[in-house]
Structure formats: structure tokens, C-alpha cells
């Protein structure tokens, strides 16, 4: 289980040549995500979604608050937690000089996948994401859709327990998006825990068990899509979000 408690992240930005100011990208965020659950993190650009997911993935450290994964924290168990996790963003860049095969092998080695299993997993993922025809081509020569398939395969190579996906379908065509969404659904069936941020409210409504609305670095509502719609008396998550931020602005 992922347990986030009062997590805040403060940054310093330069106003002009000499002046600096501090601001919170995320402020006192708390929630949990369980195995077999897809949790959607929704909010506009600059809401603090990416920073939050980066902290959960262990790329950044929170300024305050605690992040626990299976009862472990990053300060003491950095490597152990990262072995259970994968992180994918919509603009994840892959090594253009490597082939998908080399990339998958390298990732598997980093995650300490048994040597005898590596080849088997690569061929399984290659079939699953139809990568056979370009498995040994340089990634730099692949199309956007092919590259995104390689990026997802990379996430699955070590069979992680937790998926941290930051706008994974952003900018993709519907076919490539479907590949990602189908993978998310499949992994949920395997009792994996998926944290998923997106701009696309309809997409989130269709796959998320739980939704967290974030605005200006703060959680404005958490609940199932149905519950949120009911509470905000709206028909869809988009309207629900606008009604919540209007209320927030009026308040």
C-alpha cells in the first residue's frame, strides 16, 4: 500500500536577479492507494501532480510529511522501494542509441531480474506490444507510437507492484493511448497498484477506482468518481472539477 501523509514540497524560485521567493508545489497532501486500485490524480497544469508523483517515485524528497510504501520509507529503503515501482511520464525520453532489446535488458539488469528470465520476459513483452519487427532497431528511428510501446514495456520488465504514471497518454493518438489504458486495466486485474495522473477527465472516470482532485498544490477532493459526481451534483468529472474550483475561488 502507498500511504501519503501531509506531504509538502517547497521550491525556491528566482523573481529577478537578486530576489528569491518560496512557494509550495504541494501542500499537506494525504491519501492512500491499495493493491488492485487505480488512483487518478487529476488537476490542471501547475497543480502539483508531477511533483507529487516524482516524490512518490523517489526522484524528489518531500520538504515535510511522510511517504510509505509497504511500510517502508525512502530514507532507509530507497533501493528496495524502487525495485517494486515503475515510473512513466507522457514525455519519458528513452535512449535513442539503444535498441528496445538493449533497453529492456538494461532495465531488467538494474532491477536484478534473474538472468535466465530476462530473455523470456523480453520476448513476452515484445509479443504483447507487437515490438518484434523493431526490437533490434535503434529507438531513435522509431515512430512516437512505437517508442511509447517500448516505454511501457520498460515499465513492465521487472513486474513492478506499483505503477506511477504521470500523464502517460498525453499527446498520444487513440491507438497508442488504448495500448496504455489496456495495460493499466490488465495490471489492475493482477492486483497491482496504479497511481495515474491525467488531464483527460473522461479517461480517468472510465478506469479509476478513486480520484484525487488537486488544485494549486492542495487536495480539493478525494473519492470514487461516482461519489465525487454525487457530492458535486454533476454528471461528469470535468464539471465536478470546475464546480469544486469555483467553490474554492468563491470561498
Amino acid at each position, binding site marked *: 500500500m502507498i500511504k501519503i501523509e501531509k506531504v509538502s514540497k517547497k521550491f525556491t524560485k528566482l523573481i529577478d536577479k537578486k530576489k528569491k521567493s518560496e512557494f509550495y508545489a504541494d501542500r499537506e497532501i494525504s491519501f492512500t492507494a491499495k493493491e488492485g486500485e487505480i488512483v487518478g490524480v487529476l488537476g490542471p497544469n501547475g497543480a502539483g501532480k508531477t511533483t507529487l508523483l516524482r516524490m512518490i517515485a*523517489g526522484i524528489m524528497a518531500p520538504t515535510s510529511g511522510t511517504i510509505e510504501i509497504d511500510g517502508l520509507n525512502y530514507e532507509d529503503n530507497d*533501493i528496495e522501494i*524502487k*525495485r517494486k515501482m515503475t515510473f512513466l511520464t507522457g514525455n519519458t525520453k528513452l*535512449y535513442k542509441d*539503444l535498441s528496445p532489446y*538493449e533497453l529492456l535488458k538494461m*532495465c531488467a539488469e*538494474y*532491477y536484478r531480474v534473474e538472468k535466465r528470465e530476462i530473455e523470456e520476459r523480453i520476448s513476452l513483452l515484445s509479443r504483447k506490444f507487437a515490438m518484434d519487427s523493431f526490437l533490434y532497431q535503434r529507438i531513435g528511428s522509431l515512430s512516437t507510437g512505437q517508442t511509447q510501446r517500448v516505454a511501457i514495456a520498460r515499465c513492465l520488465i521487472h513486474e513492478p507492484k506499483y505503477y506511477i504514471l504521470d500523464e502517460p497518454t498525453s499527446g498520444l493518438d487513440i491507438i497508442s493511448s488504448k495500448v496504455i489504458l489496456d495495460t493499466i486495466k490488465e495490471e489492475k486485474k493482477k492486483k497491482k497498484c496504479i497511481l495515474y495522473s491525467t488531464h483527460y477527465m473522461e479517461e480517468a472516470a472510465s478506469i479509476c477506482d478513486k480520484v484525487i482532485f488537486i488544485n494549486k498544490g492542495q487536495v480539493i477532493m478525494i473519492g470514487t468518481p461516482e461519489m465525487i459526481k454525487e457530492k458535486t451534483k454533476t454528471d461528469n468529472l470535468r464539471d465536478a472539477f470546475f464546480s469544486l474550483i469555483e467553490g474554492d475561488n468563491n470561498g
Partner: protein
Amino acid sequence: MDSIIITIKKELRGIIRDKKSLLMMALTPIFIPTFVILMSYIFEEMTTTQKIENYKIGLNYELTEKEKELLSNEIEPIYYDKIELMEQAYKDKEIIAYIIKDENIYNIYNNSQSEDGSIVNAHLISYLEGYNTYLGQEYLLDKNIDLSKVYHNITYYNNEIAGESVFGNQVILMAVTFTVMAITLTAIYTSTDTTAGEKERGTLETMLTFPLKRRELILGKYAAIVISGIITLAIGVTLSIVSLWYVKNNFSIYDSIIFNINFLNIFLIIIILIFYTLFVSGLCISIASFSKTFKEAQTALTPISLITCIPMFLEMLNINLHGFISFIPIINHTTIINEIIIGNIDFSSIIIIILSSIVYIVLLLTYIVKEYNREKILFS
């Protein structure tokens, strides 16, 4: 340890597959034979086509046959009736010096501080000393005195022994300078590519999600840069030895020269160059890591490329390795190489340089590992 090895493999694969990195690593040393052969050709041209210059001097007296014999071929005497005309000729730079003879007193007028004046001065003193001796011998012969008892008590011969020479040392120094240059450029390019380049390409974020410590990440990158530098070193040293062997056997200027390139010298130079590679790689990765883009890192590292000129400057300034200099990185590496080339092997200095290099490398790596743990360096 496994994560470091995986990172090294990943970085080396990237370096080898990147044409620019490969070019920097393998092709820069190709300048070594090109320049060694070219410089040898220029040196040979200089020595074979250098014409003997005639220095014109003024005299107010006629030379005897013996004096003509004693005066160097390089000196061309011009006779003047009047001293004023001779002085005017000196002022007009028609002659470089003049001698005024008054009975048996000879006054040389010359600026011996100038380059040509000092040469002429030596010739004129030699001529007058010789003539003085000749007159003494004539006097003794008149008196029937055995000249050998006065002038030929000892016999000496001047035999040329093959040894070091300016040309020989310069051509070896050039080979070493280009090797140092190639190593430095490789370290600059690969450290830029593996740190700032990785940030710019957006792959660093992916790396940070992998289960590896930041320390392992930076050490893996550092090791890959060092390996690239050592490959360049190996190519550079091999090409240096081959090109020096070639010029030694094909250019007559090196006929009587012994190049100080025996097994021990080569071994010591390689050891020093390895520590230079380790140091300069650490320095480059430390600087490049603060840059956000490839271009920014290259700008920051440009001053490092000037390091490549240090061996030549040290040779020009004739700096010797002593206490304090032994601890200044890069200068100590290049100075000790210069010393080894001319045959001055000081093992205590070599040990000091190796130990101080290890200390600097550890400090640089500790610093950059610490910085890599800060988010500012990764996400600024």
C-alpha cells in the same frame, strides 16, 4: 557494484555509438603522427637550408695573410681609410661592428648584447686571441724555443656523442602534448554528454527511478569517462611511439640523437597519463554536472581545453618540478612528463604526484556525489 557496471556499459555504449564522441576519442590522436612528421620535416628543412650568414665588419687596417686565415669565414671585412666613414657605416647599419687598430692596440666596437653582435664579438675575440698566440709563437721560434713545450703540453679531441637534442625533445614533447590534448578533449566531450547531455535529452529522470544509488550513478558515469580517456591514451601513446620510431629512421636530423623512450620511460609516462586521465575526468564531470544543456556544459568546460597548452608553456618557461609544483594538478603531471622525457626520473616526485592525484580525485568525486544528492543539480 553491479549497478555501477550496468551504468558503465550503458554509458560506453552511448559514447561508442555517438559519432562525435567516437571521433573525439579515437581520431584526435591521429593528429600525433601528422604533427610529429610535419614538425620533423620543418626541423630538417631548417637545418639543411639554413644559409651561413656573413657578418660585415669595418677595419681601419689591412689584414695580413695570417689574419685572413684566422678570421672566421662568416666575417666579411671591409676596409675604410677614415674612421669617421667607418663610424657612419656602423650607424647606417652597413657593418655590424668595427675594429680600430692603433699600432698593436685593437679596439672592437660592437653591441655584444644584440643577437648578431654577440656572435660577431665571439668571432672577433677568437681571431685576435689566435693572432696574439701566432705572434707569440713567431717570437719563440726566433729564439729557437721548442713550441711544443709552451703550447702543446696536452692534446685534446672534441668527439660528438649521440644524446638529447632540442629537436628530439621538442618532437617527443609534441607527441605527449597531443596525447594530453586528446585525453582532455575526450574527457570534456564524454562528461558533457553523460551528464548535461543526459539532462537535456530527458533520460536522467528515468535513470533516477532505477534502483541505484546516486553514488553508483555518478561513479558509473565517471568510470565510463575514464575508460574512454584511457582508450584515447592507449591510441595516443601507440601512435606517438610509432611516429617517433618513423621519424627517427627517416629524418637525418635525428641521426645522432637518442630518444629517451625506453621501456621504463614509456611505463612511467603511461602511469602519469592514467592519473592525469583520472583527474581531468573527475574535474570535467564535476563542472559539467552543473549545466542544464550540452551547450552550457561545453561553454563551462572550454577553459579546461586550454590545459592542453600547458606542457608547451612549461617547456618554454623551463619550469622544473620542485616541492610546491608537485602538488599542483595538471602542471605536476605535465612537468613530470617533461622531466621523464629529458631523462630526469625522480621517483619521489612521481609518488607525490600519484598520491596527490588520488587525494584530488577522491575530493572531486565526494563533492560531485554530494551535489548529485541535491535536487537542484538535477532539476534546476
